[in-house]
């Protein structure tokens, strides 16, 4: 580390060079010098003091007014010096905060981790990307002893850390559900009670829960105010909304949810998403659900996982790589 005296000497040199000859080269030295002084946390008032003493040593007959004016300038720069030091410290604090959040995001990732199960006759693809560090979206797969697979997709209203904390609670509530087969309707009803009791009154969760039985190929599902997914009918080559009515989790204590059923034929697909998918804003406005269908059709020849990856990449590009909301997309596809 260079000493303060050394830096003052350097300033004297650089300034003298410039006073001798006003070249761009000499100015460039000045710019390089400032990089060094910033690195050594030299404050603006000190630079002015370097400046003044250089002038005093170089010119004997300097008018007093010039020196006084430098004293005045030094006083004015004090405020900037304080602001500069504060800025340095805040920058440091921000770094700390950032790394803390990164650690929290890793913890969350581990807490909320889920494995995509292997299911007879069903191919599953899933992707979830947070808008910031922490994800307020959540998806989860469970497989019971009858090989039935349950899929949950949820979105906390709100983003960032509060949403993420809330999600961890949902995850634990789901883990502590009784072990028998998870009927969508009863899953949502018990989670609703947990959320209603434990979460801030202006925080809500939307959730879709589905259960696929690989023996009967029946997909039963229920929704708590969640963005409707799509159903693709392979025979008709047609997409329809996978509509299910139901109130958000956490609004009313005794909400009852309706359960729907659908027979999944070979080649059929179920597409589930968070509202981050349809709330993607591009320069031309919101992404319409039709645009999303076009994306799905374009990628239909791929595996379920490749499909969701590709669709995410395309939507990300459309938004110029800036996600406004957490993004989650799941595709379930019955093998032909």
């Amino acid at each position, binding site marked *: 580390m260079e000493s303060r005296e050394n830096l003052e000497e350097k300033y004297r040199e650089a300034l003298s060079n410039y006073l001798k000859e006003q070249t761009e080269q000499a100015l460039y030295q000045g710019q390089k010098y400032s990089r060094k002084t910033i690195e050594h946390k030299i404050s603006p*008032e000190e630079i002015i003091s370097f400046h*003044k003493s250089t002038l005093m040593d170089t010119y004997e007959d300097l008018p007093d007014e010039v020196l006084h004016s430098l004293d005045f300038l*030094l*006083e004015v720069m*004090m*405020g900037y010096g*304080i602001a500069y030091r*504060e800025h340095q*410290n*805040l920058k440091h604090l921000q770094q700390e905060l950032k790394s803390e959040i990164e650690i929290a995001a890793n913890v969350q990732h581990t807490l909320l981790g889920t494995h995509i199960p292997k299911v007879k006759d069903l191919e599953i693809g899933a992707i979830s990307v947070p808008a910031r560090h922490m994800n307020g979206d959540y998806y989860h797969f469970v497989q019971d002893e009858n090989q039935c697979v349950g899929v949950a997709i949820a979105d906390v209203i709100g983003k960032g850390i509060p949403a993420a904390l809330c999600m961890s609670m949902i995850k634990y509530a789901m883990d502590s559900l009784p072990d028998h087969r998870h009927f969508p309707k009863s899953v949502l009803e018990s989670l609703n009670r947990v959320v209603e009791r434990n979460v801030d009154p202006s925080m809500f969760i939307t959730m879709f829960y589905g259960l696929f039985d690989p023996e009967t190929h029946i997909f039963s599902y229920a929704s708590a105010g969640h963005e409707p997914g799509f159903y693709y009918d392979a025979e008709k080559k047609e997409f329809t909304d996978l509509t299910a009515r139901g109130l958000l989790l956490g609004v009313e204590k005794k909400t009852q949810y309706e359960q729907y059923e659908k027979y999944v034929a070979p080649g059929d697909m179920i597409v589930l998403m968070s509202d981050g998918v349809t709330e993607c804003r591009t320069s031309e406005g919101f992404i319409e659900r039709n645009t999303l269908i076009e994306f799905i059709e374009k990628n239909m020849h791929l595996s379920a996982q490749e499909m969701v990856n590709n669709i995410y990449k395309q939507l990300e590009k459309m938004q110029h790589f800036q996600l406004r909301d957490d993004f989650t997309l799941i595709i379930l596809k019955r093998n032909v």
Partner: protein
Amino acid sequence: MEFQSCVKIINEWDIVAARQLGRNVAKELGFGTVDQARITTAISELARNIYLYAGQGRVCIEKLYENGKSGLLIIASDEGPGIPDVRKVMEDGFSTSGGLGAGLPGVKRLMDEFDLDTNVGKGTEIRATKWLR
């Protein structure tokens, strides 16, 4: 205690008087122009806090001699409302929002030592020292 002199802070002009006092003492002790400016800026901030939020109080300047070192001590005291959350006013970023205790982190950085005693409803005393290097 070698030497102490004080300025009462009642109106904005007293801030100038406190600065002047601080600068004179700093010069006598042999502080350079940059440190003089730091000391007077610290005095300004402390006196301004008294003027704006405590109504009135005083700023005293003391010369210190310890272990062959000499230094300048600022004591700013008032019988104002006190500072309810010292940790908060000592946080960076808070000062920009104004309000009681604004600028204290800046004072702390300008000086070598900083000490704050406050009682809500009773008042505040801040002691800040700069040592001659």
